[in-house]
């Protein structure tokens, strides 16, 4: 390898390029060197293809890094000392750190699981007082960056700050709008159509000194939206900024999606939407936007006890990490945390936004959804199929029975509805609930249906009607706080009881950490505690009712949390960015 001052190769603290010193000199040879590669584990799946096969990649196996080193010295004793120093770094856990020659790219770290050393005998070497060895390192499949990063899901307003929502544009006038296509104002939204790439700009100064969350609703009645970019123009004349998507979810009515972005400056003079469409020649394109608002409140569903947010996952391949859910003052209660890679459908687990009929709900701000609803009469939810990615779902309800100690049955159904007609199979099930003596709220798994009940096309307007009702209205007294549909085919679920009394070391917890396995400790762990430095944290496995394997896939992971006892719990992910071979940050 070129011996420049810029590049380095260390095994632990051992310099493989310029190591040694007085007793010997170490040189790593470029000839035959290899970083190896992560080995894909591929599975051929029998399919209905007449020709060819369906192949999936189940994971990746370890890589082998190999290179030769030449130890040279003035004496053969020096050669042996070099060999001994090198061997001390081998046959154990270690790290190989590589800095590319130009010194621009960051250090790449390979986690060494084990290693071996092979002497390459050559009868002339000892005459030349040099010896050549082959170093073989068995490493984790992917490399990682040297520095751990912390991705914070969303900034939270300070406790006690009153939520503020202000309109930027209500969509009822085209006056402030410009774009590369004719601006049309229809009903309560702005419409552009007729081009593969359309830019629509809302002009006019808006203050974001406090209200940093910009939300808007958009829809694409025609065409296949490939990409939506949002940027803002600073009022101080600075560079146009692309803004970060921090949340997405269903809009206020069927075909609309809601986006929330986070800005950092105090004030802007314009917000720009750029929509790019696939297959424009065949499918056309139409972009609608409305309800542009600014708020100091991060997105929530019902109350701030259940929140959806996104996490930036750095790196090029999936990574392990430590997910933290924390609140400064309140214990977290019975935490639900569901993570899934962003798949672009706007899917969210809570069903309350889709409720269409029920008994009169009772407002209760202490509950997760903000209301409780008796289910003597069925609760009905109509969920757009576009919001339910195909998969195996787990229906989880937070319920309370007012008849303690008596087992009661909850029935559920799910059916596809096209227009006003139910079509296809009616999925159904029931669950017996044994309420606790104190009459408190509990989580219950009602069923595990495959959804949607019937396949539909991507642009379908069909809904899945879900009903939940007590089996016997006369014999039961069951209230529902919220129903969630967790897609277990795409996401991972965690449920931990952190207690709901005032947080204290060894008692109820206001902090929860999920640590995935590492090479140093192949056992994942769940900790809960009081102090931010984890000094009083303890294993919460015994308090855990669900603990799926968590995977953090770049660039963005969605995180949905329910913390019944805490408002606005913070979420963050501490991780080393992982890369296929070379680190980019």
């Amino acid at each position, binding site marked *: 390898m070129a011996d420049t001052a810029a590049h380095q190769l260390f095994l632990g603290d051992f310099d493989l390029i310029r190591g040694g010193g007085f007793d010997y000199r170490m040189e790593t040879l470029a000839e035959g060197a290899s970083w190896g590669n992560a080995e894909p584990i591929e599975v051929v799946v029998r399919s209905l293809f007449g020709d060819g096969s369906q192949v999936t990649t189940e994971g990746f196996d370890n890589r082998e890094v190999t290179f030769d080193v030449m130890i040279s010295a003035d004496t053969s004793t020096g050669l042996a000392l070099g060999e001994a120093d090198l061997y001390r770094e081998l046959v154990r856990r270690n790290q190989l750190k590589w800095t590319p020659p130009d010194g621009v790219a960051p250090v790449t770290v390979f986690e060494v699981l084990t290693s071996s050393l092979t002497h390459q005998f050559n009868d002339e070497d000892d005459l030349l007082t040099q010896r050549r060895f082959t170093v073989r390192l068995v490493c984790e499949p992917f490399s990682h960056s040297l520095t751990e990063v912390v991705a914070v899901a969303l900034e939270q307003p300070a406790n006690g700050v009153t939520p503020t929502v202000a309109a930027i544009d209500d969509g009822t006038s085209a006056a402030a709008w410009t774009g590369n296509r004719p601006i049309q104002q229809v009903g309560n939204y702005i419409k552009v159509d007729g081009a593969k790439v359309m830019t629509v700009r809302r002009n006019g100064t808006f203050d974001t000194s406090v209200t940093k969350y910009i939300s808007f609703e958009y829809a694409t009645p025609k065409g296949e939206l490939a990409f939506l970019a949002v940027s803002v123009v600073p009022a101080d004349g600075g560079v146009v900024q692309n803004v970060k998507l921090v949340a997405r979810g269903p809009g206020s009515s069927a075909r609309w999606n809601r986006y929330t972005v986070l800005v950092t400056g105090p004030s802007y003079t314009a917000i720009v939407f750029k929509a790019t469409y696939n297959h424009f020649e065949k499918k056309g394109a139409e972009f609608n936007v409305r309800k542009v608002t600014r708020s100091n409140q991060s997105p929530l569903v019902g109350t701030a006890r259940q929140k959806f947010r996104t996490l930036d996952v750095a790196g090029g391949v999936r990574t392990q990490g430590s997910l933290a859910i924390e609140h400064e003052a309140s214990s977290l209660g019975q935490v639900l945390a569901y993570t899934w890679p962003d798949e672009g459908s706007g899917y969210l687990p809570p069903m309350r936004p889709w409720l269409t009929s029920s008994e009169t709900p009772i407002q209760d701000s202490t509950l997760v959804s903000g209301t409780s609803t008796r289910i003597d009469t069925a609760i009905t939810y109509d969920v757009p199929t576009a919001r339910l990615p195909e998969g195996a779902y787990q229906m989880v309800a937070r319920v309370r029975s007012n008849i303690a100690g008596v087992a009661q049955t909850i029935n559920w159904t799910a059916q596809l509805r096209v227009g006003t007609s139910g079509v296809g199979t009616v999925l159904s099930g029931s669950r017996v609930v044994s309420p606790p003596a104190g009459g408190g709220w509990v989580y219950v798994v009602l069923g595990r249906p495959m959804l949607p009940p019937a396949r539909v096309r991507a642009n379908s307007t069909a809904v899945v009607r879900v009903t939940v009702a007590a089996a016997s209205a006369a014999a039961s007294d069951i209230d529902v706080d919220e129903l969630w549909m967790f897609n277990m085919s795409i996401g991972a679920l965690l449920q931990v009881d952190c207690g709901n009394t005032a947080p204290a070391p060894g008692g109820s917890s206001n902090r929860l950490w999920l640590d995935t*396995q590492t090479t140093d400790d192949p056992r994942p762990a769940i900790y809960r505690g009081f102090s931010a430095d984890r000094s009083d944290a303890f*294993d919460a496995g015994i308090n855990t009712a669900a603990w799926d394997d968590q995977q953090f896939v770049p660039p963005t992971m969605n995180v949905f949390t329910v913390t019944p006892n805490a408002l606005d719990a913070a979420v963050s992910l501490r991780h080393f960015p992982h890369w296929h071979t070379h680190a980019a940050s």
Partner: protein
Amino acid sequence: MQRRRQLRVGGVWLKNIGPWSDLAYMHRWPGGPYEASWSMTLPQGFRHPALQRGQLVEVMDGMGRVWSGLLSDPDPGESTFKATGLCREAEQYLCFDAAGNTTSVPDVAVDQAITRGLPWVRRMSLGATAFTATTDPLNFVSALLDSRADELGQRWRVDPDGEVRMLPDPTVPAWHMTPGSVDLGLSSDEYASHIFLRYRGPTGAYATAATSDDVAAAQFGHREFAGDATGLGRITAGKAASLAAGVLAKGKARLGWTSGIEATPVELTTAGGVPADLSLVVAGDLIRIHGLFDEQASARAFVDVVVAESQYTDSDQSISLTPQGMTERTLADVLEASLTKAGRRRK
């Protein structure tokens, strides 16, 4: 990558103890969760209180149990752990009432076994009256439930949450197989059109109950089956007739199958066409196999089979399913069937 179910043993999440892999589990109908195994290499001499015989083993999917049972005798030197399903515990508890007398009332036998430690929950009635007039032999709960199921033409199962229920075979398909995915051979080894059941009446006198399926006899031929219910104790003529009819109702007068089904998510879908999550396909489900002509029913271009046994290795892309009525063709299957019947003291 396929998602993975989780293991919890004795209330401890197994991944908290150490890395594990190769989880495989089996369901049966009747029965429910039947067997499970996994691999786990532990340091020599390592012991953990959760890895003791009899600890509750739960296969978890999110917050839901998909399989539960009890840990079998763990061998620290072996890297494979096994668990038996909760339904198997019925083979370990005898039928007694609260006073310690033998009983043939299914509800009483199960309730008292639960009191003595059977890890079940009973919510529905399995039978509130005595099955036999006398209880001459000692019978296990499994034998009593098997007999009661035969009388009703139903099957009993214990679900992963430990609830025992008596249910008929399903009639609505839970899954559909695409045409061309499987071909099932027919076997007449277990077929019979005429059932003769030997029993002992209330006075102790031997008698024979008889029933037949004349349509099957006309289609597949006359074949007689001799059953022996004398080991149950003294039963009424009506009960004997119900037992014989139940044997017919559960498929004796149908031809069996010679092969099982190996299915992938592409070949196995919901009624709505959504590819199956294979972890949800269990014994007791009814699968409609399209593209197979049902030789045992007229004018049907599909065959409905109830799954008698499902074997799934977690996260695999295929599942092995044994249809109800599959003929025991291997020595292992024949031995298991014989020993199971002997162990339950039924002939």
